[in-house]
């Protein structure tokens, strides 16, 4: 298939996607819009998380920290000084946060940059270690961020969190960011840089012998991943309009891990599918937490049952079909074409 045809098909697909979004935006219910926004934010998060866990092969357990930084940065920058004054009852917000307000787009950009800057700082200790150590150090950073959000009352308003953010996040923002994230990360994976990352994943010593500098390569992937996680955090904050430290606990990381494991570690397509399945299936599973009526019988809802099911799914996938849905393959036009031809030949 020629490159021209492929890019034509890609553009057509994008038009189709945004056409569908346009219809939903016009005729969809608030509930549908919310789920669609959730899906887009989780796609951004899962694809950027998969870049580290799947493509680089590092078990990174701290994306919740990056998301928290993004959410707080964006929220603090987009609120008006008056709103901040209303929110901060424990103490005055520190200068200059109390006086500035920037447009939503700028605040999102700042959210990404803040998360990436933090990733830069922690990459020095984090990328020196591998395997289980890396998992526990990144988990630690995620936790430290949450502790800081709780304790730094004059910046984050402590455990009370920030309330009454403007619901700036709409389908265009969330799906626009998701599209950009998928394109950028997929381009990166397909480039020389991505090849080097995969080489590091498969055999770091051999990659080093080929002249690959693991630290610099992994650092770039880490920064890009953090950048998009931060922006997604900003979108999340302006979707649910209330943020507090408890929102960014390890459970958030756990959910992302389920998405990329179910989709297939190392596959961007898989990460997208995992994100869609999780946000959609997660909503559908709410049934188990609500009481059900069967004529005369009522089965009481079981709060917390969803997390049990999620953990079971994660364990089942990892124990019995470790590759997930996609394994490490991607759904590409070439792949579809080869499938179609194979079917015709048969």
């Amino acid at each position, binding site marked *: 298939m020629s490159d021209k045809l492929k890019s034509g098909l890609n553009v057509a697909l994008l038009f189709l996607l945004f056409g569908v979004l346009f219809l939903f935006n016009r005729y969809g219910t608030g509930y549908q819009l919310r789920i669609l926004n959730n899906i887009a934010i989780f796609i951004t998060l899962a694809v950027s998380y998969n870049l580290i866990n799947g493509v680089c092969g590092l*078990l990174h357990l701290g994306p919740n920290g990056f998301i928290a930084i993004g959410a707080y940065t964006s929220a603090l920058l987009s609120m008006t000084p008056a709103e901040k004054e209303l929110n901060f009852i424990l103490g005055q917000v520190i200068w200059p946060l109390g006086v500035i307000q920037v447009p939503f787009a700028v605040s999102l950009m700042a959210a990404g940059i803040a998360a990436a800057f933090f990733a830069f700082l922690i990459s020095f*200790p984090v990328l020196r*270690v591998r395997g289980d150590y890396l998992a*526990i150090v990144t988990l*630690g950073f995620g936790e430290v961020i949450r502790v800081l959000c709780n304790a730094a009352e004059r910046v984050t308003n402590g455990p009370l969190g920030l309330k009454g953010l403007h619901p700036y996040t709409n389908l265009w923002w969330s799906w626009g960011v998701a599209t950009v994230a998928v394109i950028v990360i997929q381009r990166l994976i397909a480039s020389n840089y991505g090849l080097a990352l995969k080489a590091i994943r498969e055999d770091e010593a051999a990659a080093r012998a080929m002249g690959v500098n693991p630290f610099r390569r992994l650092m770039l992937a880490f920064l890009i991943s953090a950048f998009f996680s931060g922006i997604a955090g900003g979108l999340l904050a302006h979707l649910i309009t209330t943020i507090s430290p408890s929102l960014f606990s390890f459970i958030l990381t*756990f959910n992302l*891990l389920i998405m990329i494991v179910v989709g297939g570690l190392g596959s961007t397509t898989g990460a997208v599918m995992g994100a869609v399945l999780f946000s959609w299936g997660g909503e559908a599973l709410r049934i188990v937490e609500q009481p059900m009526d069967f004529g005369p019988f009522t089965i009481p809802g079981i709060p917390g049952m969803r997390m049990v099911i999620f953990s079971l799914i994660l364990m089942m996938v990892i124990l019995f079909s470790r590759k997930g849905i996609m394994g490490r393959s991607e759904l590409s036009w070439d792949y579809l074409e080869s499938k179609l031809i194979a079917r015709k030949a048969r």
Partner: protein
Amino acid sequence: MSATLFLQQIINGISLGSLYALIAIGYTMVYGILRLINFAHGDLLMVAAYVAIYEILLFSLPWFVSFPLAIMATGAVGILLDRVAYKPLRQAPRISLLISAIGASFLMENLALVLIGGVPKPFPRPDFFSRVIEVGDLHILVLTIYSPIVTLLLVLGLFYIVFKTRAGKAMRAASLDFEATRLMGINLDRIIALTFLLGSSLAAAGGIMWAMKYPQINPFMGVLPGLKAFIAAVIGGIGNIVGAVLGGFLLGLCEILIVAFLPDLAEYRDAFAFLILIGVLLFRPTGIMGEPLTS
């Protein structure tokens, strides 16, 4: 700070450290043999505490019957955990094993949440542990003194098993070279089961003492102590049992003393352990007792 207060804090630190040490041993033993951070290890504390509380509440067993029973039950849960979550993945990449461990940990916590509910339960501390000793100005709960003593006794017993028995020899051999041990005709599945049994039982003892020390138990009570005990194991040099004990005491003392001397930082208490971990990994990744890494 007065001398009495200082002494009080030292005793508190040793007491807290002894609990970290008990829990850290399980991490380090499993890591030594399987090269796996058993993320679900901390949740065994919760299992032990709930089993103990239900034995006391439902069957009104005295503590000296219910605690050993709870420890045995938790040991069985530990073996089950290995069989279900880790054994099918012995040949799999390490990342799968870790993800399975995280899944098992969440499963245990949320099952407990569904079955028991999230409302914290008060743990009935037996009178035996509730007396307060007064020495001069010092007021010390006997539990604070008993926990390091119990820890030391259990650790001595463990050392006997690990260093003096044939099973212990096999265990040490497996942590040096897994494949060669298998070639020597040792049944590794049994050795791994024994490792989980011992580690989980010690964690259970730690969990029960933790529940008496902070007598509000909930399904997530094991998460933070578990993480900190893991950090203690890293400080001591992961894979090394003596190191885990030392690391546990060191971490407990550091935590208490930092909060005692710098009360302004008390809010950040849970972040210290991770900062210490990062420092250790940066400057001495093999910990206090660990062998230098060879490539």
